[in-house]
């Protein structure tokens, strides 16, 4: 009782709406910060670089160029919310991408090839999930095995790149659905569908709530939640996203290449963290990860506009990641003190 009163009177005395908001939605703050940074990046680029940075074409291209990252980030968000990590996503994308190209080259119908590669991605995710859940392997190591496996398999499928000439796959990329100067490709639509499906599952289903509970507290099983099933499922989801990203990237580049996506897992983790998902689990939003990927993509295009070397990209992303981790650390520490 007294606690409630003191908190209430403190809020009244300081009277800040912001304080009320921030204490109630502390887990939302990093995501809002990411959104603010995204807007600042846009405005800054518009002012300092050239007048036409904020243009429909540019923003449309942002989604088009980063569609595969968006899809991977959705899967990664699920995993990180359970306090896990999935290092395999870049390699799974490479493996499923080159496998798709190989299948199509051999004359397999896309209606068969695309489900096949998604199942392939899901199986690697299943392996990781089973290792994590039933053999008590740390997610880091289990997904490391997944990384090695998928990367090796990518090279087993083919040592060099394979061009894709199947019309229906290229259609995913070449079709531009226009609305004035805005456009979106089927790959972009696919990415957005994955985001909305992910956000819905996370926020409005029993499975989503269990996911948060598992990351928030390993003893969630005591509350009758199906922890084992959920833990395995998040890695399978990440694997499926890896398969979808493989499809999107292969359509995007018009070829499968076994060396694709080296280090992509780090970009994805960085984007997810920037988007406000906390690496210790229990907090995070799929929509935040979408914002995170856009921040990442915007920095990338600003750097290429400026004609600066790509090395700056790595440094800026590293610095931004650091900034967000420190902010998250402060927020988590503060909310822990409150409870």
């Amino acid at each position: 009782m007294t606690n409630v009163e003191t908190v209430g009177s403190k809020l009244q005395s300081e009277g800040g709406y912001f304080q009320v908001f921030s204490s109630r939605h502390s887990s939302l703050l990093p995501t809002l910060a990411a959104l603010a940074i995204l807007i600042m990046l846009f405005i800054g680029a518009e002012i300092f670089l050239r007048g036409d940075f904020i243009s429909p074409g540019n923003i449309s291209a942002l989604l088009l160029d980063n569609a595969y990252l968006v899809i991977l980030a959705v899967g990664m968000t699920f995993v990180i919310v359970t306090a896990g990590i999935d290092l395999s996503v870049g390699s799974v994308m490479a493996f499923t991408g080159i496998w798709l190209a190989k299948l199509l080259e051999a004359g397999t119908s896309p209606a068969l090839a695309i489900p096949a590669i998604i199942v392939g991605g899901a199986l690697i995710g299943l392996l990781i999930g089973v290792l994590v859940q039933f053999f008590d392997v740390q997610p880091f190591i289990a997904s490391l095995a997944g990384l090695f496996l998928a990367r090796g398999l990518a090279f087993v499928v083919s040592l060099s790149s394979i061009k894709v000439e199947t019309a229906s796959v290229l259609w995913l990329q070449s079709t531009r659905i226009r609305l004035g100067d805005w456009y979106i490709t089927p790959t972009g639509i696919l990415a957005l569908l994955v985001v909305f499906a992910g956000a819905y599952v996370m926020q409005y289903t029993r499975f989503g709530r269990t996911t948060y509970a598992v990351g928030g507290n390993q003893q969630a099983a005591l509350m009758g939640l199906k922890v084992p099933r959920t833990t395995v499922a998040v890695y399978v989801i990440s694997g499926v996203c890896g398969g979808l990203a493989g499809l999107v990237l292969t359509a995007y580049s018009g070829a499968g290449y076994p060396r694709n996506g080296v280090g992509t897992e780090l970009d994805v983790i960085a984007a997810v963290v920037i988007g406000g998902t906390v690496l210790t689990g229990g907090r995070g939003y799929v929509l935040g990860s979408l914002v995170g990927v856009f921040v990442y993509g915007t920095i990338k295009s600003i750097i290429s506009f400026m004609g600066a070397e790509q090395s700056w990209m790595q440094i800026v992303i590293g610095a931004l990641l650091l900034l967000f981790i420190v902010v998250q650390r402060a927020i988590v520490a503060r909310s822990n003190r409150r409870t």
Partner: protein
Amino acid sequence: MKHRLFWPVVALVSLILINTIARSQFASITVRDDRLYGALIDILRQSAPLMLVSLGMTIVIATRGIDLSVGAVMAVSGAVALTIIDDATDPNSLGTVMVAVGAAILVSLVLGVWNGFLVSALGIQPIIATLVLMLAGRGVALLITEGFITTVNSTPFSFISTGYVLLLPVAFFIWVAAVAVVGLIERRTALGVLTEAVGINPEASRLAGVRSTGIIWTAYAASAVLAGIAGVIYASNIRAADANAAGQFIELYAILAVVLGGTSLMGGKFSIAGTVVGVLIIQTLESTILFLGVPSAQSPVFFAIVVVVVVIIQSPNLHRVLRNTFRTTRSAGPGEPTSDAGAAG
């Protein structure tokens, strides 16, 4: 049998045996021009960078941490050394090379102190704290080399990785010296015990008066210095600073080596000898895969299988299940019969 190095050593010896049976020249060592030649000597020479990185990784993991930035530190270190040698008037002078190597190691130390600051002073999760440098480090290395692959021709510098002293490669002596120094410091002083204490229970050891902040900080600094030396050896071997390729995936192989050597990723008890065996297993496996004619790009599949088998054998859950299954036989020493059964499967 009870010794925890038993299974790693068995794995290494059987790998060597399989190789010897499959190709008779594997175990043969010949002397030519005051040098020993042979596949085994190659393994000892080539394992130097991974050995140094894994040593540092062992200490960091013992504190319940992890250092993902080692590959990036290697890239920075190589870039610093080669840029100094490249800019020097006389790349062949010993002084230049010593200055370059010294500067490279110093820069690595600074990077390690940075990692240690993030982890021990700011309390950021090790995976993420070192991820920052892992991402940014290669960018820094690219800036140092100005985006080019700097190549040099410097006899003293090449000597570091390709030279021979007393029949054996210099690189081999470097890693043996590093193992000896780290082993002595960790096992002949209290530092090793304190490190394990921090890894087993950071809070309890802090209350017991262990200055855990300093110990964790030192671990990351040591890891980066060792990675820096590894970066110099790598650069010396290819006579170039390749900011993208230097030390790529080495953090993963180093973690694998540490785990193979029996050190738990949960921190606490660590085994330097185990890590040495772990690195030799990886290097021998790599050589075996190459011998089998598998393209080296496909070798990760083998490592994946090794990782999966090793972690399943080490899994406490499997031990419990097997123990329950075999309980009817008789309750022998805790865990012993189960690890037999686990390894057989």
